[in-house]
């Protein structure tokens, strides 16, 4: 059992999606996250355990390697895909309430702004850390963030912006959210933004990179 979880962890860490996937070369001919998850469930490992003892720690390692520049994004994306294959098996247990994610994280690039590469990375890493992620896409006005929180009470909201003309919109959006949903925590990020600006517009948290978000979230969750 231990061994199965360890194998699953490695499959996710190195981005082995399923048996037939050619990457990574060193795991050729081996089972991937897909098969290993099925086996684990069959052999009686609890879904919560799979999540907590294999998937999340795997993505945690991936995140660390990435932030130490030891792997590239494509490798991280392969891991995310492998995790996705595993999650497919776990989905029924989420629906039934048998396992819970750490919470819901709503993210979007603000009104007027189309840059989403950074936002997508954040979304992926947060998902990897065991959160339910709702990605609202780009060019998102206040109303859509608010609607999403209304549908997911207690969710955290994250705003991304890359333009000096759209970061100004963040201020407005934060005010709108806080006016409607005063207890909602709002995170902000993106190249032109910094901690001073975060404080200035009354947002709750800023991080320069996804790793910072994940670390802060794990503090919040514990």
């Amino acid at each position, binding site marked *: 059992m231990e061994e199965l979880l360890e194998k699953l962890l490695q499959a996710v860490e190195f981005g082995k999606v399923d048996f037939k996937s050619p990457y990574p070369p060193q795991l050729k001919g081996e089972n991937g996250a897909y098969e290993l998850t099925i086996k684990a469930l069959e052999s009686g490992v609890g879904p919560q355990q799979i999540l907590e003892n294999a998937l999340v720690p795997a993505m945690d390692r991936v995140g660390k390697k990435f932030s130490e*520049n*030891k*792997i*590239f*994004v*494509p490798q991280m*994306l392969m891991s995310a895909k492998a995790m996705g294959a595993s999650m497919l098996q776990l989905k029924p247990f989420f629906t039934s309430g048998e396992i819970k994610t750490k919470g819901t994280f709503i993210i979007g690039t603000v009104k*007027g702004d*189309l840059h*989403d*590469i950074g936002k*997508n*990375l954040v979304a992926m890493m947060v998902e990897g850390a065991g959160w339910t992620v709702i990605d609202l*896409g*780009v*060019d998102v006005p206040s109303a859509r963030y608010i609607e999403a929180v209304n549908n997911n009470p207690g969710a955290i909201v994250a705003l991304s912006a890359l*333009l*000096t*003309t759209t*970061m*100004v*919109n963040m201020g407005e959006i934060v005010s709108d959210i806080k006016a409607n949903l005063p207890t909602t925590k709002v995170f902000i990020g993106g190249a*032109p933004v910094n901690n001073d600006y975060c404080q200035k517009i009354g947002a709750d948290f800023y991080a320069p990179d996804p790793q910072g978000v994940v670390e802060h979230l794990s503090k919040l969750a514990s």
Partner: protein
Amino acid sequence: MKYKSLIITNPEDLIFGIAPNPVKTRRGLEIGGGQVYAELNFTLPVMSINESTLPQVYEHYREIAEGALERAVDLNSKGVVLELETLLEMTKTPWIGIEIVKVMNEICEKYYQKHGLASEIRLTPNDLREFERPAKQRTSQYLEPMMELFEKGMIAGGDLLSIESTGGKEVSDDALMNCDIKTIVFALAVLGVRDMQFLWKKIFGLASQHGKIAAGDSACGFANTAMVLAEKKYIPRVFAALVRVISVVRSIVAMEEGAVGPDKDCGYEGPFLKAITGIPISMEGKTAACAHLSPIGNIASACCDLWSNESVQNIKLLSGMAPTAYLEQLEYDARLMNQALIAGTVPSHILQQLLVASDVYTDPQALILSPENVIRISKELIKGDSYVANARNGAITALDIIEEALASGKIKLSEMETAYLPILRDELESIPESESEFIEMMLPLLDQSKFILSEYGL
């Protein structure tokens, strides 16, 4: 592809300040006609653009143009290009962009009349079509305001017309992050090419009608995005180098449709375009560190005709406003190249060689930009019968060059990088020569919810 042979075949002739087909402008710039000019780029500081801030917006652009041209006069500048790259609001509501052109053109004219300083505005509307997802490249409601800005903006004094068009980007974005070179070829050599044909027919038509200059398009959203991501260590540098080469077959379509240069600064495909078509080009390198860091600070200038800083906010530095300071930096860079041109062919080549040698083996993206390698790759980029074949062949040649430099020990690459070399080669070699075969091969692999085939005439 229209071009079947290179205009510049000798690496020695691929040099700064001199283009086989120079471009003359209304106020007397001769771009590529024997000297390098500064192309200043700038943007607003942190602020929003709305009715109440419009006076400030115009004032910023007035201040930028005035500060830059005043300094240019003091530095005995031979000429300046000011690029207005519009932001969303200025294109969506074209009269805002047009008004900014007017504000700046008035100042250009003032300095021309008063001091004889030649300057010209490059007008670069942003491509609004990407605001719809999936983008509607041909049927978008946004085409209208874009074209209105082009037309009325050129009449208002935006004499050089450019765009960083985004056809294919909806496919390339993910492909970049996945390091998926085949999909990049699809995005650029199939979708990009088709959209460029559609768009540049229109732009060239308008330019011809009004006697203005259809300048060129940059694959910024593709190849520069790749470079920035590689610089952040998100994707391999070797991959970014190949994306650059592949982008050539897309950007050259502007010339096929009638554009004459100067090609846009942020397109490092410029040197290839210059070799193949003979147009003058704008480039950016070390002096664009205000806008993005890069591994090609010096080598980027090896064959530039305009020298740009890509973008800097209109904020205060200790010396004055940042655009003024950057204009000064660009002018001194240009002066050095121009002095070499005055001194003759030998000093020019020595300066060029130093610029090249100082960067060439530090990064695969620099490597492919040396004049020798540009010529070698360009030959492959025009040999085939389809854009797809050309993109593939160019990229494989770039890969050859990288592997040769690696084998000879001239370039050093980490294992993280070299691991990608065989993978990239395999994938490139699996690409067929024929576009239709390639499309057939790719369609099942692509997420068709992300793009609309018919918007590309497919």
